[in-house]
């Protein structure tokens, strides 16, 4: 069960980031996940885009803030602000473009430089519907993920294959990790993970 509009009540907030080369389909994955739509020609992301979807896991409402980053913004100090407080990062490549797969290692390094140590990563090979154009096998993806020590799956924003699974699985891993980590379960705004935070912010004066 899930809602597709910004919701006003939730048990936890998770900030997730989509990163990867330009054109691998980050924005399409996000659009499919949040609005259940697919558009083959999608405008280039400049800076970031941002969408919200609230999902339910084990009876808890989890508000996912998903940040979609521009593929060219890899080395910029401005990206530090994007990574701040991210609890999960989705590394995306295009299974029809070997160069985007080769660049996963660079993205992995960049992410490790900027993200918190406990940020959960997941590797995703998008466009798995393009059987005839495939340039990266599932085994290659799986082997790389094992080497990097992160989960892996292939997905297709076009056919909606594994898109929900991707986000639910990542959110579940983060929640599970944080159950066992008391340090991250408090009302911790600065560290990023704010799992089990108060359900809604009070209406106290802001100024």
């Amino acid at each position: 069960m899930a809602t597709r509009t910004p919701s006003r009540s939730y048990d936890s907030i998770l900030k997730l980031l989509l990163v990867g080369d330009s054109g691998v389909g980050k924005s399409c994955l996000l659009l499919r996940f949040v609005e259940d739509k697919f558009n083959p020609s999608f405008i280039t992301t400049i800076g970031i885009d941002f969408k919200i979807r609230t999902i339910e896991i084990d009876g808890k409402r989890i508000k996912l803030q998903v940040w979609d980053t521009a593929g060219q913004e890899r080395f910029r100090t401005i990206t530090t602000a994007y990574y701040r407080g991210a609890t999960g990062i989705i590394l995306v490549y295009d299974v029809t473009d070997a160069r985007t797969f080769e660049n996963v290692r660079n993205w992995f390094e960049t992410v490790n430089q900027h993200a918190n140590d406990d940020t959960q990563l997941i590797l995703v090979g998008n466009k798995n519907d393009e059987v005839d154009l495939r340039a990266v096998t599932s085994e290659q993806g799986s082997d790389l993920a094992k080497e990097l020590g992160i989960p892996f799956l292939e997905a297709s924003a076009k056919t909606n294959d594994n898109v929900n699974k991707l986000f639910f699985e990542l959110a579940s891993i983060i929640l599970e990790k944080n159950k066992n980590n008391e340090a991250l379960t408090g009302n911790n705004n600065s560290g990023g993970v704010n799992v089990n935070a108060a359900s809604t912010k009070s209406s106290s004066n802001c100024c």
Partner: protein
Amino acid sequence: MQRNKTEPSNTVPTPHGKLVTDEYQEDETLKLLPVPKENDINSQREELVKEQVSIDPLSEPTRTPNRSKFSVTSDSLDIIKVDVPRLLLSPLFTSQSIQDDIVQILYNYDHSYTSYRQGYHELCGLIYLVLHEDSDDETSSLISRSDFNKEVFTTMINFIGPIVSQFYIEDSILGWSVSIFNRNLLLVDYPLYELLLKYHHIETQIWVIRWVRLILLRELGLQNSTRFVDFMWSYDSDITKLMSYIIIILLIRIKLSLVECEDSGEVLYLLLHYPYIEYSDSDICQMIEFAIQMDQCHGDEKKLKEVGVQCNKWFHKGFKWEKVKDLGKLRLELKLKRRVRGVLGGSK
């Protein structure tokens, strides 16, 4: 934006701080370089793989003399080729030949000026579109395709120079966000500044980068954005001059929605999905008028605050904005009003 609207300035600043004289723009012998074929790029790439480097090339995002110019251009060309088919400003750009033209113009800009950055393609598309629409049937039959592309290229050099130096260079955009935008917001509308930066802790550069890099195209839509740019360009050939004030005015327009947001995520969502409306000419004139008034305050705190209050009153009537110092209180009032309206509506 109109064809040959402004006198070209004598010099066009480049992001690297060098100045390019306008002789280049007026050079009738100017010839756009052809885009290299895929095979040429691949053969060069193989050579590049073998090249020894003394520094980690991944740590250096900008072009340096140590790097092969071709390597940068070929990498840029890949991204240009990914971006141009995603240029959706107009159905015009679905034409393969026009896409090829845009690729060639961007490739030449990358080659002669600065490495391609995502966003240049939309600025180039905007210029292409405006010049295309401006050329009536009579003139278009006289202008060859290559001459038209040259015109787009030279207009692009003139037009995007200040935008690139201010908003695409990383240190500049960070500096602009903090030293210019935040400061102006603080002076024009302190409660709004406090709401965004102190209460929600939203760093300006995160959301403003798209607003400024695409000169409000995504926020206002093509028609509105073009009209704003026209006004800004009429005021000063450096259109970045009024940009911070225009954005502040646009924020004031959605101030009540910003106030009502429950958390920083909702605020950021709103900032990145700016509510679209079609503006009338008089709306735009008034907003530009406010921006010019702000610019002409020359940093005078009292005057800026006064213009800010006027602007708030123009958008949101029925509030004594000069007395509103606490947007938290305002949020409670708005909530209460909404509930009362709900109760009254339900009881009818």
